[in-house]
């Protein structure tokens, strides 16, 4: 999955799960604020990532994520390791 595919795939399942407008999911936007995540929502974020991308991020993984761009970096790295 290349970066473009990662962006379109994650945009689809994140907007669906967290009920936000796809257009608000932009690379420079803050992931936590855009998706309106509280501590419980991070559990659901793990679930949808595992269901859609096949890996389970850890709490430490999320510490380095600020923007969606950071998130796409993480997904790229994890998928590369899986491959």
């Amino acid at each position, binding site marked *: 999955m290349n970066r473009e595919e990662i962006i379109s795939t994650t945009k689809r399942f994140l907007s669906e799960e*967290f*009920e936000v407008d796809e257009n608000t999911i932009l690379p420079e936007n803050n992931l936590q604020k855009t998706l309106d995540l*509280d501590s*419980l*929502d991070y*559990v*659901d974020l*793990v*679930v949808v990532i*595992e269901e859609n991308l096949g890996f*389970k991020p850890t709490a430490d993984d999320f510490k380095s994520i600020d923007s969606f761009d950071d998130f796409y970096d993480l997904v790229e790295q994890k998928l590369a390791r899986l491959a």
Partner: protein
Amino acid sequence: MEKRVVITGVGLYSCIGNGKDEVLDSLRNGKSGIIYDEPRKEFGYRSCLTGMVDEPNLKPFLSRRERIGMHQPAMYAYMSTKEALEQAKLDVDFLNDNETGIIFGNDSTAGAVIETVDKVRERKDTTLIGSGDIFQNMNCTVNMSLSTIYKLKGINITLSAACASGSHSIGMGYLLIKQGLQERVVCGGAQEINMYAMASFDGLGTFSVLEDQPSKASRPFDASRDGLVPSGGAATIIIESLESALKRGAPILGEVIGYGFSSNGEHISNPNFDGQYRSLNMAMKQANVKADIIDYVNAHATSTPVGDSMEAQAIYSVLGGNVPVSSTKSMTGHECWMAGASEVAYSLLMMQNDFVAPNINFETPDEDSAKINIVPEMKEQKIDCFLSNSFGFGGTNSSLIIKKFVK
């Protein structure tokens, strides 16, 4: 000084109607809400009869976070509570600023628990359950959801008392307001409808097997009754001090004047005359009324051979044989944890509209039901005061007396 306790809002999400208007029509016309639910047969049920309501779509009303912790009991209770609060003229802003409690009856979350356990069995990782299931799985699920959605800041407890849960919830709220400890309390009862919730009950052989005639199956007090029909949904009753209701200009639908309760202290499932008799008597004594004041009795009668006979004996002993009696379970089936609250709601609708809903399917009395005045067809009559009975497994009994409000 003790406070007077009045009812200012009623909401129903029932197998005989979504909301009070539909329910009123069903009560007047003796419409049954019982269906044959085919998947139960394959699952292993002895009887597939049940009352049925749809799972409501709450997306237009609630956020994802508010919805994610809700399974059937909370979903149904949200619908009934929304209607009740609207009637009571209570909104979130008012509730946020004015202490209001919630005592809701619920005694199971079987469907939610089984769905959660199935997820873990399949995925072998508890993290992948998601964040909502814990709030669906706990028995206080209705309280957790409604108290956070509506910003309720008073008493917040779930009342689990088997099939008397809904009735005791009103009784306990009544006592708190009467003593001046709360100004208003959201009371009610919720009952999930799914095959997981009622399987073990079906296994006791307690359910009617008149599967080819669903609307005829629940026949409380009739000599040919062969068992109850499970059902569910939710009912909400808003109660508050008279001062609070008058100050807010809320509609006053009735006044709670008596609450009797007792425990049989005997067999875990067999009903008991003495326990029911004590509950009825306590309610009458507390309300300080004589038998001739009661214009209508909404019986607990579930359509089981022994239970209905015991209740007929208890009603006859305390109130005599003249007072009109009907069991709305003849139409709704047994709404279990919800029943005590829904049956107060059904009776309030009758009181407001001057009729007694029929005890449908009452065709032939038996020795005990012949002694009391069971109403088989809708009867136009004024009701100024009614009594509602609820009895549950474990021998928990509750009787409420409610009258028309007179200043």
